[in-house]
């Protein structure tokens, strides 16, 4: 019995991600356990290393219950509007540096990072093409992103920061297109790595990402003994033929890259040993972030000095039973990001790695009639890392009022006060995109004049 899959209990279940089902595959049968990677102390790490790590919260995280008004008046208003979804004030996690706000009780690691100055909150960020007010939104006087409130469109528009989801490149991919000639010379893998399957975020016009299945870097299994090399060579030769068929050719291209990257990753990690940082178990996001940390550890073997990583976690679409569901998910995020930050400290790169969240949208402030909330717009996000000017909130928290100046309608779907492209542009500029390159990477940034950057990164 040579099946690499045979050891898995048929009933071990894992959580698929939206569009990203290879993530959280740490329990997948036959995948090698973690522990094969190391910082390769003998190899000098690139001095000027930087990495961005995107954590995508699929389904639309309810930001209204993530960052909550905490002063007496603010909390009372929140509680009144949220009704059955209101969190008890006594359970909230306080922020001494931001006394008017508090965090969801399932975010203790995030709380700690904010309070220690290593994480910041960016308030009410969302897809926008130009500054937008309730008045000009309702009057139809602004150009809106297409298909607001639709999951796939809003996911894609966060990832491509373009007028619609149908643009073929994401902003990480465009950064790779732009910086590829000045960084990562001699790298054996692309600048962008996804540990959560294919996403628009990662695709460039002239670059494609490498996808990694967490915990599985040793390549495909072979049961043909001495004949394996011959079999593999023959298989690889088949993808070099021109079939003349569009989809076959597309798959040939992906497959050829797969052979190449699998070897590069296996070579770079072959003699490595484990990180000391303990990551939480039974946490798909933690497995992804652990994989990312281990790849960062072998950055010199991979020949990279600039990397963008993508990972994600699903099930935030809490139309019902929101209170329990969101608590579970936020708990996983907090623990996973906390461990990841610790791992970057272990590797000595905590100032060189910046982690940030994205999500489809926030959710209606107003609860629905069965314990959930529906699709919203502007949302609050976290940025974590040693270079983050933490213990602070950036952007503008919305005025919580149904039909108020920040409501796009009457249910508390907040009009963003900061555009996702401004958020992305801030991260990209820290990463190394210069002013002259901004328009190429972020074609919609021009809608915001000179406000191309927030202040959350030093």
């Amino acid at each position, binding site marked *: 019995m040579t099946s*690499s899959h045979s050891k898995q209990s*048929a*009933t071990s279940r894992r959580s698929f991600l939206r569009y990203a089902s290879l993530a959280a595959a740490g329990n997948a*049968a036959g995948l090698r356990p973690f522990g094969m990677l190391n910082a390769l102390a003998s190899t000098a790490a690139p001095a000027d290393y930087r990495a961005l790590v995107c954590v995508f919260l699929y389904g639309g995280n309810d930001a209204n219950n993530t960052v909550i008004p905490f002063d007496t008046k603010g909390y009372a208003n929140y509680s009144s509007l949220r009704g059955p979804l209101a969190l008890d004030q006594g359970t909230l996690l306080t922020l001494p540096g931001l006394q008017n706000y508090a965090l969801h009780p399932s975010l203790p690691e995030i709380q700690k990072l904010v309070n220690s100055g290593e994480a910041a909150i960016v308030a009410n960020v969302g897809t926008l093409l130009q500054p937008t007010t309730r008045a000009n939104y309702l009057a139809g006087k602004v150009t809106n992103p297409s298909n607001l409130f639709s999951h796939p469109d809003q996911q894609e528009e966060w990832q491509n920061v373009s007028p619609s989801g149908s643009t*073929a490149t994401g902003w990480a991919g465009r950064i790779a297109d732009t910086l590829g000639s000045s960084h990562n010379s001699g790298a054996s893998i692309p600048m962008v790595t*996804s540990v959560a399957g294919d996403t628009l975020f990662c695709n460039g016009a002239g670059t494609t990402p490498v996808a990694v299945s967490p915990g599985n870097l040793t390549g495909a299994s072979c049961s043909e003994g001495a004949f394996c090399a011959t079999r593999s060579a023959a*298989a690889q030769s088949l993808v070099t*033929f021109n079939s003349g068929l569009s*989809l076959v050719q597309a798959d040939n291209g992906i497959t050829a890259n797969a052979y190449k990257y699998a070897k590069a990753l296996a070579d770079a990690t072959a003699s490595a040993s484990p990180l000391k940082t303990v990551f939480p178990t039974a946490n798909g996001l933690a497995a992804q972030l652990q994989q990312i940390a281990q790849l960062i550890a072998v950055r010199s073997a991979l020949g990279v000095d600039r990397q963008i990583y993508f990972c994600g976690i699903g099930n935030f679409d809490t139309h019902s039973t929101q209170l329990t569901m969101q608590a579970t998910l936020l708990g996983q995020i907090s623990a996973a990001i906390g461990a990841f930050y610790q791992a970057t400290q272990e590797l000595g790169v905590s100032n060189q790695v910046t982690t940030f969240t994205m999500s489809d949208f926030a959710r209606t402030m107003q609860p629905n*009639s069965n314990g959930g909330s529906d699709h919203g717009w502007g949302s609050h996000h976290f940025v974590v890392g040693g270079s983050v000017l933490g213990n602070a909130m950036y952007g503008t928290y919305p005025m919580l009022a149904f039909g108020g100046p920040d409501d796009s309608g009457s249910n508390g779907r907040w009009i963003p006060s900061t555009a996702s492209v401004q958020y992305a542009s801030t991260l990209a500029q820290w990463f190394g995109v210069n002013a002259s390159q901004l328009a190429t990477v972020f074609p919609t940034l021009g809608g915001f004049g000179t406000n191309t950057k927030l202040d959350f990164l030093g």
Partner: protein
Amino acid sequence: MKRLYQSTLLSAVSGCLLLAGCGAGGSSTAATVASSTSSGSTGTGTTSTGSTGSGTTATGTGSTGTSTSGTAGTGTGSGSSGGTTTSGTGTTTGTGTTTGTGTTTGSTGTASSATSLATATRLLDQATFGPTSDSIAHLQSLSTTAWLQEQFNTPPTVLANLPATLPTQCTNNATPCFESEAWQTMLTGPDQLRQRVAFSLGELFVVSTQSVSGYALVPYWNTLAADAFTNWRTVMQDVALSPAMGLYLNMIQSGKPAAGQHANENWSRELMQLFSIGLVKLNTDGTAQVDASGNPIPSYTEAQVEAFADTFTGWTYATSTGTAPTNFPNNTANYYSPMAAVEKYHDTTTKTLLDNVVVNAGGTAAGDLKIALDNIFNDASLPPFVCKQLIQHLVTSTPSTAYVRRVTNVFINNGSGVRGDMKAVLTAILTDTEARSGDTNTSQDGGHLREPMLFLTAAMRALGYSSTNIDATNLWAYTGLSSYTSPLGEEPMRSASVFNFYPPEYVIPGTQLNAPEFGLENTAAVTLRLSLANALSTGSLNGFKTDLSKTSTLGVIAADPAKITDTLGVLFMHGQMPTDMRSVIINAISGLSDYGQRVRVATYLILTSSQYKVMH
């Protein structure tokens, strides 16, 4: 680039094609041989292959006579449809799916060889869970029309409802049991077309065991299979009131909103966006309508989403006898009856739906639901939206607009004034010239990537895998298969979200190709699929067996490297393996002295090739 294709493939196919079940009788031999001249060897011909129903005259004897004898013979006694029905409320056990690979005995050997080998194999790849030697021979003995009719007449394989006490192999979790039944049905059910359509419907009307009990998925799957050949409006109705969908998108227990709340929008939004009409208005050819400025026209507004949400309030579980309860929400689960309404919790205000259709105040939950579903069903965007996706699931990711329009027109009117006739739509999809041109023209662009579950079923069926588990309950023997597709992102009815395993709008990076299944294809997935191909090609699926040794049917053929390559080329690639690929495989295996290893290596090379992974 001009390519040559093997033209001698049928020499390998003479007689009993291969594998288990070959002994069914001489009729398959006759049928196979008789059709051997029509595989397009040069890729240029447009020779008539009887693909689109030219064999209708043979239908009379073939179809009706065969459907009875053929299917009855496959059931191996467990009864393919004798068990529970979708509306049953019990928890009957043991009447589950049939076992063993379906060995249709060559259907009376109708003398006329109505269907070419290439047509038979390609149609089976499009419309079933993968060709087998027997199913190829059987289809070849019929016309395509007769085969479709036979499949339309084959009763559903009914998944048994899960018992309160689950087999220990399911570890107190209904999902593995449900998945096992689903796998077994896909692999062995005689109602292959019906189940294949149900499978596709399940990727449109997505419900997931990520948040819904496996108990509820069993009747849901049965509903999709039962409705596969009815009318689209019937599918909409039955899905809308299914507890599984009710649970997944929250129509169940969605009551008239109290002050300070609004009705749950989940079902109303996704019913329109994902299941029916899409975000923008469509032309009959599936392209987006545009306004004077060239911009797409939204299909609905946020206000309409909210109006539908209000319209769909008041539904909860039916009582154990299928009647409406008096309490709301009724939290006593009944997965086996359609949801029932408690009128007091139905919002009776006036709502304005699509096309200015108004739901008047004071209506009932069922009456208003009918208005709403009729409203969506009759929307002009629904036929192209549905038809394009069905084409993509069954035939090609990249249909021409003309192909979409032809099928859409059949959806709009089946010729008898009926809108939404599923048999007519499926026939139109599968017999369209664009679906069939690849039978003779191997340069025909199109096809679609085999998604992981279909990759697994096709290989297992072709290679004759059978379960080695002793499972008298028919509830768990196939459950282990999910561990092979899970790393690749799929398990039966276990999507990450309502957006299915892969997004319908997915475009392959760097191309303009809208190819949904490629949403699961990336450099990590490719490597994982190599490992799966290794397991499949070496007979190493845990809990399953097949004989690929030197003494097996294939092993004996492998004494001749060209012959085994061609034989596998028929089973896997419609007898259309390109010559350059064929040469690589023959060269790779010729030096092997173990003929079993020749079979294994050749199979691996086919399964890992993009030529195979993209079914075309």
